[in-house]
């Protein structure tokens, strides 16, 4: 991992200079801007159970499925297509350093996107002249929501990196990531809808299912509840995906 910093600096620089990153950023901010604005409008029209910021975070899956695959798809697929991955691996840099640097670069880019979103509640408050009204931009909700994005992003980005290792086609990598993220997010959501508690024969599923409830994790985070179990889930999932990615890259050597 001695070359991690060199590779990370290169990946971050490449991300900043890539047109695709800026297109993704524009798409992300447009999506989140629209989502947040409609949440504010809904809140203005009728009483809601969630504040506009909470409602916006509940729709985190929209940019997750639409934008994150665009960030991860090129990381390995494009390098494999061009043959530059093989050339990179002729240097003393290890496959692990390559995988971790690409993962960290995309994860930081993803956080930067969400960091830019953090300005929205302030912009809305300024526009509406309600600065200081925490119902529009509660710092606990904002901080908790961003912490959820950072923690869950470990697994989400790692899954995208792993999918990008599997193919030379960026489009296929994006599709695989989309399906993987959809399956993971929907699995948690579907399990939440199932009345597992009332089905005795599914009793063994109760405990694992509780861990997979992504939306519950998000709600806990936005309420300021920090539980260790989501950290373990997302961190171990990240390690699994990145481990598989390292093995895949080594196997392609």
């Amino acid at each position: 991992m001695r070359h991690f910093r060199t590779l990370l600096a290169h990946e971050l620089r490449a991300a900043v200079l890539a047109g695709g990153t800026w297109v993704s950023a524009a798409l992300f901010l447009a999506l989140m801007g629209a989502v947040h604005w409609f949440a504010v409008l809904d809140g203005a029209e009728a009483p809601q159970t969630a504040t506009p910021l909470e409602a916006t975070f509940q729709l985190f899956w929209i940019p997750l499925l639409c934008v994150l695959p665009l960030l991860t798809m090129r990381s390995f697929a494009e390098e494999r297509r061009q043959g530059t991955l093989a050339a990179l691996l002729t240097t003393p840099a290890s496959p692990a350093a390559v995988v971790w640097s690409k993962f960290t670069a995309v994860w930081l880019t993803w956080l930067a996107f969400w960091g830019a979103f953090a300005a929205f509640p302030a912009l809305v408050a300024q526009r509406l002249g309600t600065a200081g009204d925490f119902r529009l931009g509660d710092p606990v909700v904002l901080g908790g929501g961003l912490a959820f994005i950072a923690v869950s992003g470990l697994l989400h980005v790692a899954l995208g990196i792993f999918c990008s290792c599997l193919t030379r086609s960026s489009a296929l990598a994006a599709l695989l990531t989309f399906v993987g993220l959809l399956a993971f997010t929907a699995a948690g959501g579907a399990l939440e809808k199932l009345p597992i508690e009332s089905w005795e024969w599914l009793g063994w599923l109760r405990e694992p299912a509780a861990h997979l409830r992504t939306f519950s994790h998000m709600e806990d985070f936005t309420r300021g509840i920090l539980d260790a179990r989501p950290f373990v889930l997302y961190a171990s999932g990240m390690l699994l995906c990145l481990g598989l990615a390292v093995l895949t890259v080594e196997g392609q050597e």
Partner: protein
Amino acid sequence: MADAAPLPEAAVAAERLTKRYGSLTAVEDLTFSVAPGEIVGFLGPNGAGKSSTMRILAGTMAGTSGRAAIWGVSVALEPAEAKRHMAYMPENNPLPEDLKVEEYLLLRARLKDVPADRVAARVAKVMEDCDLARRAARQLIGQLSKGFRQRVGIADALLAEPKVVILDEPTIGLDPHQIVGIRDLIRSLRGKMAVLISSHILHEVEQVCDKVVIINRGRLVAQGRPADLRRELIPTANFTVVTRATLADVTRATLGAEPTALVEALGETEGWTRYRLALPAASPARETLATALIAAGLPLREIAEERIGLEDIFIAATRRAPAELRRP
């Protein structure tokens, strides 16, 4: 101060290297070596297993069995250490299109463990050596011509002053001027680095290399200095003679000098006939043939020994039957 580490016997060593892709054997039981500072041509027809062998040696692909070592370090067991001694330019020389030449070389220098205080100087040196400094340093690699891209690949290979350089088809797609430039550059590495170079341009290899290794269907068919291989693989020395004498007279005079010689008439132009005289390569008559023909009173206009190039050696070596290859 500690003594410098002793030179290994072989800078590159392939020992019984085998690579199989399913039922297809790309490289089989291949053994050869490159001495420190030596330039070795790695030859073979298309699909002979050259690129597979080079990729195994470079550590970008695992062999099925056998041992590959760079500067005495096993490529399979200590890949990072082996790569520290070696640079590899793959066939087609893949390069990132969206980086400038200088940026790319700076990145590669850092990844190749060039000391931080020497990175800029090394990049400047290789760009100068490869004629990139003036015209290409600040250009995007994606905008470079094929020749300049090859230069970037070679500059990258030389960046960390490795002990071993492996170049897979470095002159492919270059024009004659560029080929001469690359050839001179590679020649300048003699004695400084061990170079293993594959090329289809045998004339180039012959001009640059100390030794050649020839493989066919994944197996070694010949290795050694071109002069030694010439003696081993081509047992006859051919002379071209142009004279007005008849076939009978030429045959009589030639057999007088070498009783096992063969004479063949190639064609006649304006009364002058061109003959080919084939003598055993080891025959002392090679040195006295001209004198013998003149002494026999033949009206000679021309006599010359046909030059046996690497191309002839290559063809002779790659035609050898598998049974012959197994002969000790």
